């Protein structure tokens, strides 16, 4: 930690980045809440999974975090929901504490046709109608939402509001405009539409939205998109000796685990010629490798058994540019062509 004496100067002005900012003496370089924990070692209420509580028909919420895909264990701070791709449903963007700072989740629940997006424009007071409460007569009762600038934790979310209509095709909208003590009826909106509601007008204006879709995710576990050049890959044998993957020839890397029944069943049942065309890479930890070697012998697979390095350091140095082995589903087959381009990933489906 570099020592400098800038810790007691007043706020940093201007747009230049002060490279010494934050590099005070070692004692002062950490906020007191962090001072008493090892910043690179011990956790403090760490590894917690983001939550998604889904409202139930009968009232209350159900914690479905573990089933819906947004339950990252990173240390989240701010969180906003907004329709980033214009498809009508709210996506999620989070700012984390870790080096992997930013995370965006596309909402694929697939019910966009049930959405109504509401933009407001006030004609009295500030035009953005910040603080207005909007009520839509939804299928399960009237739902109120507020146009907020500053909400959650250190967050400022979507400037427009999204309502779900469920099975209803249209609904009435009411607005409590900033400065008004009575509700204004603003007319009817239809499912699947986006509307601008102007204070004083009796019917909503239709807004044309350029609908798109946030780009499809890279295959799960991979750190490169299809079509990217794959860096040199280093694997290891059963006793941990490095083995460089040959370059310049097309290869199908088949990642498997002896602890994964579908992997073992699939490989055992595979046509031997087809199996021979795969370069098998076992992802098992050291204690299990003898079992993997035994299975390979049983299947009559000649040649040295290859493994993904197990320690995080080795993984980063060898396969890390291509994939996060820990989050790669197995079995997976990764196709790399003769010029080293990632051509695709195949997952066996039962």
């Amino acid at each position: 930690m570099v020592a400098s004496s800038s810790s007691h100067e007043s706020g940093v002005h201007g747009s230049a980045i002060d490279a010494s900012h934050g590099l005070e003496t070692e004692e002062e370089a950490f906020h007191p809440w962090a001072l008493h924990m090892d910043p690179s070692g011990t956790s403090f209420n760490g590894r917690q999974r983001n939550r998604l509580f889904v409202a139930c028909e009968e009232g209350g919420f159900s914690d479905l975090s573990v089933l819906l895909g947004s339950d990252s264990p990173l240390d989240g701070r701010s969180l906003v929901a907004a329709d980033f791709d214009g498809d009508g449903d709210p996506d999620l963007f989070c700012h984390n504490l870790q080096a992997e700072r930013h995370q965006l989740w596309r909402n694929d629940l697939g019910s966009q046709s049930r959405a109504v997006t509401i933009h407001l424009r006030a004609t009295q007071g500030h035009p953005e109608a910040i603080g207005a409460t909007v009520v839509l007569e939804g299928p399960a009762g009237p739902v109120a939402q507020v146009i907020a600038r500053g909400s959650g934790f250190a967050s400022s979310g979507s400037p427009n509001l999204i309502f779900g209509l469920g099975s209803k095709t249209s609904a009435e909208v009411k607005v409590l405009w900033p400065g008004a003590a009575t509700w204004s009826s603003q007319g009817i909106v239809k499912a699947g539409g986006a509307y601008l509601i102007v204070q004083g007008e009796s019917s909503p204006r239709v807004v044309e939205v350029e609908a798109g879709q946030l780009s499809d995710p890279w295959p799960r576990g991979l750190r490169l998109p299809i079509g990217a050049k794959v860096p040199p890959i280093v694997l290891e044998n059963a006793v941990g000796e490095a083995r460089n993957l040959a370059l310049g020839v097309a290869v199908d890397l088949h990642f498997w685990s002896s602890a994964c029944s579908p992997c073992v069943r699939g490989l055992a049942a595979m046509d031997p010629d087809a199996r021979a065309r795969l370069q098998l890479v076992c992802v098992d930890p050291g204690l299990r490798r003898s079992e993997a070697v035994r299975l390979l012998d049983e299947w009559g697979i000649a040649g040295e058994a290859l493994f993904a390095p197990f320690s995080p350091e080795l993984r980063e140095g060898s396969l890390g540019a291509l994939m996060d082995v820990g989050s790669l589903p197995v079995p997976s087959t990764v196709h790399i062509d003769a010029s080293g381009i990632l051509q695709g990933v195949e997952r066996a489906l039962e």
Partner: protein
Amino acid sequence: MLYQGVNRPGWWLAIVILAACAEENSFEHQSGPLAEPSGARQGSVSGIPGGEQAPLNIEEPTSVIRGPYTAEALAGEVGDLLTEFADRLQVRDIEGLEQHLTPDFLGHALGRMASGKEQTLPLGALRRELQAVQGPGLDCQAWLADLSALVSNWNQVTQAELHVLEAEFERGNPSPYGVVTFRVQLAGITLGGKQEALARRVRGAFLRKEGAWALDRALLEAGFDLERTGPGFVDVTNSTAVNQRGPAFGQPGNDSEGWNGAAVADVDGDGRLDVFLPNAMRGYLYLNQVDGTFREAAQECGLLGTGGGTGLVFADFDADGDQDLVMGGIGWSNAGESGGNPLRAFENNGEGHFIEVTKQAGLGANMPALGLVAADFNGDGFLDLFVAGYGRMEAMRNDNWIQATNGAPDRLLLGQEGFVFRDGTRQAGLHDRDWTASALAADLDQDGDMDLLTLNHFGVNRFWRNKGSGRFERDEQGLGGSQARLTFGGTLGDFDRDGRLDLYLAGASSGTGRRMFAALESTGEVDLSRSLRGLAQGNHLLRGTLSGFEVMPDAAGAGAAGWAWGTVAADFDLDGRLDLACVNGFVTGELPADT
């Protein structure tokens, strides 16, 4: 003695209160068998046919360690063991688990799926309860084989977590024996794409073996399974190019807990929503492109060196049709009674390029702003700013844990014509010294002006009623006696569908805290215990009424969210009911230990 400690601020107490607690307990807030205290303490087993054999038994410690600090330290040791156990399960290192069991281990099978009562949950999810059946235990190899059968059926273990819920230890130095109730959560994806998850509550006996704890008995007390097939949320961070990395936690530029804010607006006027994420080293402005990706453009747009990065808002402060930016920076390393950095203001030129106008806007004064809320509080047509004043913890820690009075002052900055502010705090009557982390604004009493909720650390939250023209009065009953005392964020939304805004609060949760404060109650400190538990109780849901908010029991099922920071209400499945998302976690280190 603890009472004195509560009034004598010191980091040691914070550590005690907040320590060792990844074991926040989602079961406590749910209905069903896991919510009940372990009434059937012995031999309530599932999945194993009842027979003539004696049920599995666990001996209670004969002389229990009473000191909460010692007991928690031991619970922490077992917690670390459970974390290591979970890490091995995550990579299906079943053989590696054997070292954490005693040679004489006996336990009920955890991995076989439940076959009891079924309940349909939203989004086509299914929940199945475990049937409780008496039965003997499996030995080490059979028990591990059962776990192995579960995880080997998945093409990926997506979650493996084991957390301490309750712990008692036999006296001794070192303690030789402990009875620890813990929660097991495992999740994975089958080859067919079905998401499966199971939760189990296990009462375990732990022995200290050659200096390390090992599991000797595992009694299954309760549990349920969840499953669902179908798409949910998809992480598109990489494919949409919002994957720029910052320094790791603890490195220069990322050395506070990272008050990492985020704000959404269409900054370049192309009709698509962009995101700005400030940070100490540099800001990130992700401009939403037509092709479904984002382009990082902080430098070309003038938002690279914003520094800071606590609360921030985009709004059209000068009413010229584009989105300007004001952001806070808590600046905890600055001197002065309240310290902090000035807010910084950036004017949009209409095309998404920002010019700093902090001084012209009259925002030169230092203030340790954590939350920032824009609204027209005095009804003059110009946007004002409410600045949630936190404090400078390194110079002056909170003077009390349950109702601190030395936080930095909040500010109400009144907007004038043309993106200029003047301080109107005093006239507004917003004069408290709470450690305010966040704030929310809405016309909660529907009388034509914007009311305020301030969400605080080390004290209760506040309802400030706007009495007209931006003069505020604190409504002491307005939050229904809510005992939340360590709130990080909150969101307003109508969760009971009565046309009125309700309030969801995201706050600290700590299994350690709850256990210790409950122990305090048994010493007769009932009121203090109740107040202290407000520091560790998790999230809260308050129902809005015309006269104020009412506390909903168990947050209507949305209470357990870990150590929660940001939260947002939205109807994610568009069924006409608002859902809740919440992010959490204080600091995750590289070691399995959680202090």
